[in-house]
């Protein structure tokens, strides 16, 4: 699983130092000012400059003076309940039936020969649930208000003391409720589907003479081998991402072997991530090497030199690791070979654990670079050095200080390189419950659904049903391609923005040439307009939800406990969208002639 660097931020880090809050406030301000300006222009055309200003000011003051203080839970709930019942009447529960049918034919869609059936199953249920629920949110939210206006049922609503806020927010609540209900149903069904789908047992197919080693039969397209300890207990080898417990039971002098249910395929690992810095060949802190790949995801360190990668971990607590045999490190380090040599022998690396004050460090722990996910357990008691004197150390008592620990990785083969990104080396704390992680995955889908509903309701306040649906879909689509759009709209050193580009096309000037229109002022004007255009689109882009980033399916699929900070951040973002769309929706309901 590849993590984006920002996913590792803590909630606070995202909110304040990384300007999450600031960007939200800036966006809100920009949109409000923009919205007020547009409203004023429209009002001015209709009513004249003075009256127009009064009309816009009245709506803004109404919001804070009357409508927000006048919003009552009773009315919100009435409208929410009505929306809920309306959705039920529209037979939204059919979605559940569709899902069940989809699962019944899952065998046709899923290739069970894969190495990780658990990942396959979870991907299947999560992505199909995600799609279904988002579509559901889209349909129920965009058609409701336009239908009310078309059937004129809205007449009996707006002639009651119902505030515009209640019409918008009540709907969002109602549709979110029905969505939650369906999502809950799908979640429970999916969980059962995954667990039952992965459930299988083996029989012992062969056993050695001493009864210590054996092989299981072929079941669910795989088999295991196993070894038993002196106590008659053991675990099978790993196949298809899981193992089984094996116990031998002696009854009446006859030995039978019992193989338990699969374990280890449904996990919620808790990785601790660190901050990565590199040192160059002379041991000076640097940026890491680029071995010539386009992707800047991993940076490389040179072998047989002082070049190293240093991870600084924080919040390493003894109790999070206690029940394990030692410190579990998971690595996914890439090797880059400058000569072929012996291609079968892996490149060698080494790990040193060091205290943050650099006074205590472990001896070098060598490893072979597996070039795929590798799990290494460093036992708790380890030889090392304290103030350069040899000593026997306890990782958690002697090396870790205030929860801080440094892990240094070097490449031991000269002229070979090791490549790593921050998320490529993690400390593994005790696993958490898979069920809760699965639930968190669904909470994440729920948040996406709420965003869709918010946008759907917002668009339905001023567009007709089908148009609102297309508008919502376009918003989500644009959001999905947000990062790409950003790339297009970044003001670049050469070539300029849209207008300059048109000029260049017409005048057949390549991007590397100066624009040179023979008129400096004109050039400057074009560039300024371009800048405003591109900056505008780029900032508007952040008003669109990027579901690539909000999707957390990977965490559940790869069995990694979804970071609470990330979930919290997504909640905050969802809340931001809720505020934004409610405000815009309020504005349109307030200014719309319901009988027109």
């Amino acid at each position, binding site marked *: 699983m590849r993590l984006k660097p920002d996913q590792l931020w803590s909630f606070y880090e995202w909110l304040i130092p990384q300007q999450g809050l600031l960007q939200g406030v800036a966006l809100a301000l920009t949109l409000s000012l923009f919205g007020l300006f547009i409203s004023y222009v429209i009002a001015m055309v209709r009513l004249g400059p003075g009256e127009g200003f009064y009309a816009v000011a009245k709506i803004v003051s109404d919001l804070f003076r009357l409508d927000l203080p*006048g919003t009552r839970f009773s009315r919100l*709930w009435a409208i929410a309940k009505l929306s809920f019942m*309306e959705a039920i*009447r529209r037979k939204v529960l059919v979605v559940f039936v569709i899902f069940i049918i989809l699962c019944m034919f899952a065998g046709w869609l899923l290739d069970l020969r894969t190495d990780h059936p658990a990942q396959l199953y979870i991907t299947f249920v999560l992505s199909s649930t995600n799609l279904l629920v988002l579509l559901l949110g889209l349909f129920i939210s965009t058609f409701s208000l336009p239908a009310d206006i078309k059937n004129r049922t809205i*007449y*009996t609503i*707006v002639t009651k003391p119902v505030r515009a806020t209640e019409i918008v927010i009540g709907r969002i609540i109602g549709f979110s409720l029905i969505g939650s209900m369906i999502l809950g149903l799908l979640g429970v069904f999916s969980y059962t589907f995954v667990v039952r789908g992965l459930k299988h047992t083996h029989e012992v197919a062969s056993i050695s003479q001493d009864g210590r080693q054996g092989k299981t039969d072929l079941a669910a397209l795989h088999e295991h081998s196993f070894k038993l300890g002196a106590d008659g207990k053991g675990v099978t080898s790993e196949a298809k991402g899981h193992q089984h417990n094996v116990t031998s039971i002696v009854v009446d002098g006859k030995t039978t072997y019992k193989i338990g249910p699969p374990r280890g395929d449904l996990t919620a690992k808790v990785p601790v991530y660190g901050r990565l810095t590199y040192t160059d060949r002379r041991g000076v802190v640097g940026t890491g090497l680029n071995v010539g790949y386009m992707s800047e995801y991993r940076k490389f360190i040179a072998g047989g030199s002082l070049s190293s990668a240093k991870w600084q971990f924080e919040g390493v607590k003894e109790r999070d690791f206690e029940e394990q045999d030692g410190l579990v490190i998971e690595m996914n380090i890439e090797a880059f070979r400058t000569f072929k040599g012996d291609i079968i022998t892996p490149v060698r690396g080494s790990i040193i654990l060091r205290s943050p004050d650099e006074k205590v460090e472990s001896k070098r722990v060598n490893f072979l670079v597996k070039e795929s996910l590798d799990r290494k357990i460093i036992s708790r008691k380890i030889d090392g050095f304290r103030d350069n004197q040899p000593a026997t150390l306890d990782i958690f008592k002697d090396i870790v200080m205030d929860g801080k620990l440094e892990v240094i990785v070097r490449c031991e083969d000269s002229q070979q390189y090791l490549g790593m990104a921050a998320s490529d080396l993690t400390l593994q704390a005790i696993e958490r419950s898979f069920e809760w992680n699965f639930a968190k995955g669904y909470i994440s889908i729920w948040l996406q659904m709420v965003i869709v509903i918010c946008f759907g309701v917002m668009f339905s306040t001023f567009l007709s049903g089908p148009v609102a649906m297309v508008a919502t879909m376009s918003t989500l689509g644009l959001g999905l391609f947000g990062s790409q759009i950003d790339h297009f709209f970044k003001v670049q050193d050469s070539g300029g923005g849209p207008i300059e580009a048109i000029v260049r096309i017409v005048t057949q000037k390549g991007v590397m040439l100066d624009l040179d229109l023979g008129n400096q002022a004109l050039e400057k004007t074009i560039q300024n307009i371009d800048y405003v255009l591109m900056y505008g689109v780029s900032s508007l882009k952040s008003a669109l939800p990027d579901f690539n980033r909000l999707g957390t399916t990977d965490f559940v699929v790869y069995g990694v406990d979804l970071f609470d900070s990330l979930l919290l951040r997504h909640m905050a973002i969802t809340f931001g969208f809720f505020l934004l769309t409610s405000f815009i929706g309020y504005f349109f309901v307030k200014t719309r002639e319901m009988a027109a």
Partner: protein
Amino acid sequence: MSVDTQAPTNAPSSVAGSASSEVVIETRGLGKIYRDFWGRKKVNALKSLDIEVRKGEIFGLLGPNGSGKSTTIKLVLGLLFPTSGRAFVFGKEATEVTKNERIGYLPEESYLYKFLNAEETLDFYGRLFDMPANVRRERSEQLIQMVGLHRARRRQLKEYSKGMTRRIGLAQALINEPDLLVLDEPTTGLDPIGSREMKDLILRLRDQGKTILMCSHQLADVEDVCDRIAILHQGELKELGRVDSLLKVQDITEVHAKGLTEDAKREIAEVIKRHGGELLQIDNPTTTMEDLFLDIVRESDARPGRRVGS
């Protein structure tokens, strides 16, 4: 402008037309132009309307289709925004939502949620007034009894007949015990009995001190219940005044008498002639179709299974 915005006292103004001077609805130069998407003028639906509706009266808006009656009502309710002029209800701008606390509105057709039943409908609208649960229950019960839907209370509105829909619509409009009732074509779609009941109810509500603004093109209805009327035509106010004085023909005298012989009638005719009057008509009156119909229904209710008059 001096408009009393205090809550009205509930003292009934027992006799028709005893409206107080308190103004409930006031329009000043109210006008509405419908425009198309591009802002081009499509129709001038209402031109500078000035009316005042006082507390405790039944005010009728009369006019042919497209005369601006419904537009006026929608402007008063804030469903439309005026193009020119202003409308005030209880002294507040018509677009202000808080005025709705004291208004009950029965739309032209009962635009209600068809998937709710009568109880749910009333409960829903009760919630919109932020009424506490026990009050909502009590009030719904009263209204269901009043409009005679107690047998159909659990049926979804989509199964209702037109008359029943009308009645639940009325109940919905009365859920908040409004001081002002706005009725858009209250009798359309009702049979003569329903129509009579509706009219009686309107009069009863007036006697309870409520103000009623209604529009209709059923002249008989307006004549029966309204204290004052405004006649609109092509968006313009053509006539405004008390129904009794508007309809009174000053130079004609009407005498109703019973048990007169032909001789007596002849004698009366002579008396008229002697006093310089002109006899226009002396005849037996015909009853109205409505009265005839109601008599028949009443009779057949009393003696079922028999042809009336046989």
